[in-house]
């Protein structure tokens, strides 16, 4: 593969987007690629927008993705997927997590949460998958593993050995929570196969 692959991971502060994107970037480095990764997050500790750019290939210059260049959009939250359409290639791969986190302007009744986001995206792009990572995490035994469950689904789009993903997860997750995270990863991985 000569080309640089561009991944955009988006979600809301507190969902574990950063950790998941760290694991993706580290895994790609261990798989032998040059990798650059960059994040934008707001000032708030919780509840703000988070987006992470990951670029890997034989030689990567910019740490941020250009407009119309992202090959993959992985959205941990439904609404957040809609913010980044400018960044997508014409025929992107999109994976949506079903979770909806209402922004303050929605809970205060000022704005409405957009309806049928999946339908809207499917009309525009032909490769849109949806996964319920929170439910998968619940099955695994801890809803806090939903980011790793989502990562499991994300991992199916790349030809990287499962063992390498698991080794990387082990580096990033505390030992006491490793088994439950690996279970969530494995369940998330099966979902899309």
């Amino acid at each position, binding site marked *: 593969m000569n080309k640089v692959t561009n991944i955009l991971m988006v979600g809301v502060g507190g969902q574990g987007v950063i950790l998941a994107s760290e694991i993706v970037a580290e895994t790609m480095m261990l798989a032998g690629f040059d*990798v650059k990764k960059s*994040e934008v997050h707001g*000032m708030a500790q*919780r509840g703000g927008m988070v987006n992470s750019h990951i670029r890997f290939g034989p030689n990567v210059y*910019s740490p*941020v993705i250009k407009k119309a260049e992202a090959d993959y959009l992985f959205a941990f939250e439904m609404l957040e997927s809609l913010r980044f359409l400018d960044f997508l290639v014409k025929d992107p791969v999109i994976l949506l997590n079903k979770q909806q986190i209402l922004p303050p302007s929605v809970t*205060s009744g000022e704005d409405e949460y957009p309806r049928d986001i999946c339908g809207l995206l499917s009309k525009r792009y032909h490769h849109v998958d949806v996964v319920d990572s929170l439910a998968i995490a619940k099955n695994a035994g801890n809803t806090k593993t939903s980011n790793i469950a989502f990562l499991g689904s994300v991992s199916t789009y790349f030809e990287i050995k499962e063992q390498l993903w698991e080794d990387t997860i082990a580096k990033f997750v505390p030992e006491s929570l490793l088994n439950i995270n690996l279970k969530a990863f494995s369940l998330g991985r099966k979902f899309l196969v």
Partner: protein
Amino acid sequence: MIIRQENTNQKALMSGNEAIARGAYEAGVRVATGYPGTPSTEIIESLVEYDDIYVEWSANEKVAFEVAYGASASGGRAIVAMKHVGVNVAADPLFAASYTGVRAGFVIVTADDPEMHSSQNEQDNRNYARFAKVPMLEPSDSQEAKDFVRLAFDMSEEFDTPVFLRTTTRLSHSKSVVNLSQVESHHVPDRLFREPEKYVLLPRYSRTRHPLVEDRIKRLADFAETSAINRVEINERSAGIICSGVCYNYAKEVFPDYSFLKLGMAYPLPRKKIMDFAETVRKVYVFEELDPFFEEQIRAMGIDVTGKEMFSMCGEFSPDIAEKIKGKFDNNVKNGMDSLPGRQPNMCPGCPYRPVFYTLKKLGLFIAGDIGCYTLGALAPLEAIDSTVCMGASIGYGMGVDKLLGRHAMGKAVSVIGDATFLHSGIPGVLNMVYNKSAVTVVILDNRTIAMTGRQDHPGTGFTIRGDNTHSVDYEALCRSLGVNHVYTIDPFKMAEFETVVKTEIQRPEPSVIISRGPCVLHRRLQRADKISFMVKEHMCNGCGECQRLVCPALEWRRSRAGNTAFINRAMCYGCGVCMQVCKEGAIVESNE
């Protein structure tokens, strides 16, 4: 993930900040100091992971600079890290250290914030290098960040000068692959050195130092001509791009076939190298974020370049902006959705600042604010803060209001400052308001941590950066000893009591300090043990909307034909009980479910 010292000769994915820390460690740094500030914070935090280095969060950037400088002047390698505006605080010792030079390597990291992701301005600190006559290196990725720190230490010793390393938010917070190396060992002296003619800036000594500084800059400019970090890449000759830092990677991404002069050294510039490059290519572009720092100096060399007439002086660059060189730049790629609901930053559920701002706003007060999470109180719909200038300014600002308007402002204004900010630079303000007989009321929001940059310790928390126990400031005793006679410590969640104290103190023609003590809800050590949450008794809610003025993320608003009602999202509720106190209908109650 933490890269510990035993891991050498291997690859690691590191942020720019982690790589700067690693570079300092590999260079045998002995003392590392700083004050938290986005985007610099993780440099000092990462250095804690390495043993055998003295690391501290200092009280402010000036002190941080002086501690590191004292170590360097005494023969041990030292690094100090701060955000761009921190250098303003440390500017005084910076200009002096330029004259006095070093004994062992001394590196100053300035982390600039183009786009103001988390800052009050986007000043371009390359100007400080020229102003203070101190060389500046500017890496483009994490590998260079690590390598340049090591080079900076060597240059510092070779040229007897402090050396700046400039990073920007994009570099500090981006990760890229770094090859780790072995640690250099440096001899640390076991005795004191005395050299007053070098280290005592009496005018007669300073006069002998200044010519050395001027000569040093010339020698550094010669070094810049030959150093490999100022790299010429000749490809297609139709266009040549001069750039530095992360902008190099943006331009390289878009124009891999053009010629480049990549400046690893932002100051001083390699005059001959630049002139040769300009003669080799047909058209020269200077692609630099913020000020025309290179452009003006290059124009002064008599070289015609295209720069700021094409690229903005404001904001952060991107590969998309680099496209402008092609003339095909189109900022109107519109594939996205308009008017999506935003997620603006907000105080957390249970934040001890929320009840304070609610009350001050309710009393209709003018609030001179400061730098920290509480600056979020300025956002709609709370809109409680009327001024935010810089660290510590709330007190002086409030006093200016008081001295100008006198009785017209009496009882109508307060100054609000966080605990860390007060200790950083608020104390002289309080001293001044006592000395000069001001009537200002200061509210110290003591949440027991430096919250906004990620909850660091400070002189008021009782812990050092390594988690060791230490003295914790007694704010009340401190303020009294400064001469404030009216000092109160209150619990911000007892809203009625706070309101009474504020109402009394703002009318008093003397200075007062109110310490509002409640830990940050994300505090690592001070977590509440009980798990209470609240609920709205729907039939009792008359939809007045008073609780919505708290802008609590846990408080939702449900619209229906029967009327609007408040609703508490129990997953989000921290159980602070502030909404219960503001509800006039008694509709919000503790929930035992």
